[in-house]
């Protein structure tokens, strides 16, 4: 099973980040992981990474409710950045508000909406779906 090169987690919750990293390790999901604590931090850093053509992530696991810049605001800016390779975005949120689910469907860049809690099975499913693409 081929690994994903670089996964980017954008989430303000350290417990989630800790758990997600560990679960990805267990699932042998990704070679490396980069973490940002909110949309703004992620956007600034990703812009710079993409311009300098450094370690551009393959997928982004994006939380919705975050301080400073939330997931939607991040996406609205992020889709304006031109990238050489397609970056897949997965929304990973604990929100079961139908409004959020509905909104997610409007973004072409969003591959899927994954409801927290995440588990080894769910992470493995992401990989399976990516392989199909």
């Amino acid at each position: 099973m081929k690994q994903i090169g670089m996964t980017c987690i954008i989430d303000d919750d350290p417990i989630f980040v800790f758990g997600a990293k560990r679960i990805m390790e267990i699932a042998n999901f990704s070679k490396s992981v980069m973490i940002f604590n909110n949309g703004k931090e992620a956007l600034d850093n990703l812009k710079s990474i993409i311009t300098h053509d450094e370690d551009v992530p393959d997928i982004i696991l994006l939380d919705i409710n975050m301080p400073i810049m939330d997931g939607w605001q991040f996406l609205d800016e992020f889709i304006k950045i031109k990238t050489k390779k397609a970056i897949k975005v997965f929304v990973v949120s604990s929100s079961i508000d139908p409004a959020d689910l509905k909104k997610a469907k409007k973004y072409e860049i969003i591959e899927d909406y994954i409801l927290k809690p995440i588990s080894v099975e769910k992470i493995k499913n992401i990989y399976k779906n990516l392989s199909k693409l």
Partner: protein
Amino acid sequence: MKQTLLNTYSPDEAICLFNFVQEEATIGTWEVDLNTMQTTWSHVTKQIHEVDIEFEPNVDSAILFYKEGYSRDTITKLLKNCIEKFEKFDTELQIITAKGSEKWVRAIGIAEIKNGKAIRVCGAFQDIDEKTKVSKKIALREEQFRKTFESARIGMGIVSLDGKWIKVNDSICNMLGYTQTELLSIPYADITHSEDFGISNRALSKLIKGKSDSFEIQKRYIHKNGSIVSTILSIALVKNDVGKPIHFVYQISNITKIKKAKEKVNHLLEISEKQNKRLLNFAHIVSHDLRSHYSNLDMLLNIMKIDEPQATKNNIYPLIKDAIQHLGETLDSLNQVVILKSSAKISTASINLSDALKKSISSVNALVLKNKAIINIDIDKNLTVFAVAAYLDSILINLLTNSLKYKSPERQLQIDISAKKEGNYILINFKDNGLGIDLKLHGDKIFGMYKTFHNHKDSKGLGLFITKNQIEAIGGDINIESKVNVGTSFLISLKT
């Protein structure tokens, strides 16, 4: 004048003129010679009495023409006084003519005195029937208006063309706390709310210019005690026979209480809207923030199981795992309630009841088999209900799982589901032979939030609350009949 006029005519001509005047003015003459008691009526007098020209009156028969009672008594007395005390009389009385019709007449009498004794009484006799009837009618109308005006519960006032009170009724006085005299003398500005000053004046000038006949405005007056009196003021312009404006009629209804009540209602509405928003906000916090903590707990437990398997091999770990799973389920149920309460628009469709029920049963089939339940369905295959498909499914599954959860350990569970059409509704009877609920104890809170009635491990207390809300959201109704240890029947009506 009369003398001069008559003098220019010959005696015959004068008599002719005299008769002419009598006829035109319907004034007749009469006289009684008190010596001979000979009574003479003029032509017109006879006409008024509707007797033949040959009729020969006498005092007694003349008096008998007067209407019995007041009229006859009065004329008898007046005539007596005229003869004995030489008192003139001029009165209006009623007679009954020879043809039986009632008439108002004016009778005038004067005595001719010789040697201190009346020798002759004579006078005039006029038909005033029409005039009297008209004026009596007017008097009656005026009386009616006066009574209406005075006793009206609504404030009424007559206002001059230049905007001054001419007359006010008691209701206005009570409304504004002034006496009639006070109200007529104080300036209009003193009883008008400063912000509303001038609005009625502008309207009055419009009325006078003939732009409209009446109008209605909301106007605030000031009570003698300083408080504001909110009113609806209707003003009508009254014109005379030739269309010239005479005065205004004001009608004032006190709407202070209504207005205050309305303000209170609006205030309450505002509060409840705010609270509703706060509640939705709170619900959102529940659905998101609490859920994220639950997610973390669940995730960490799973990692623990993999990373620290030794730490999970005890009695406590599975209990924590259960507790967290229940927390997640409760949050999901709560979220359903939130969605139900916040989604204003729902789209209903006509759904086949029998099919929907089969689908719901199949999704809980594992539980049905595990509990060895018998389900009897008696529903016409053509019955349809108006519902949101997801709601109907949730309602049916909830009722099924309720019956399965709360079955009696003493007997095999049997669920009977029947439905019939009644008018525009489908009545569904959902009956089981389970534990039952003590309705005397719990009847009023059976469909409330967080009410559990059994010590069952899966009781979360939201099921029936959500079910009732879903049923009501699609215009239906749910009721319960239950006996402890006999079973429970849910009676549901849904639109068809």
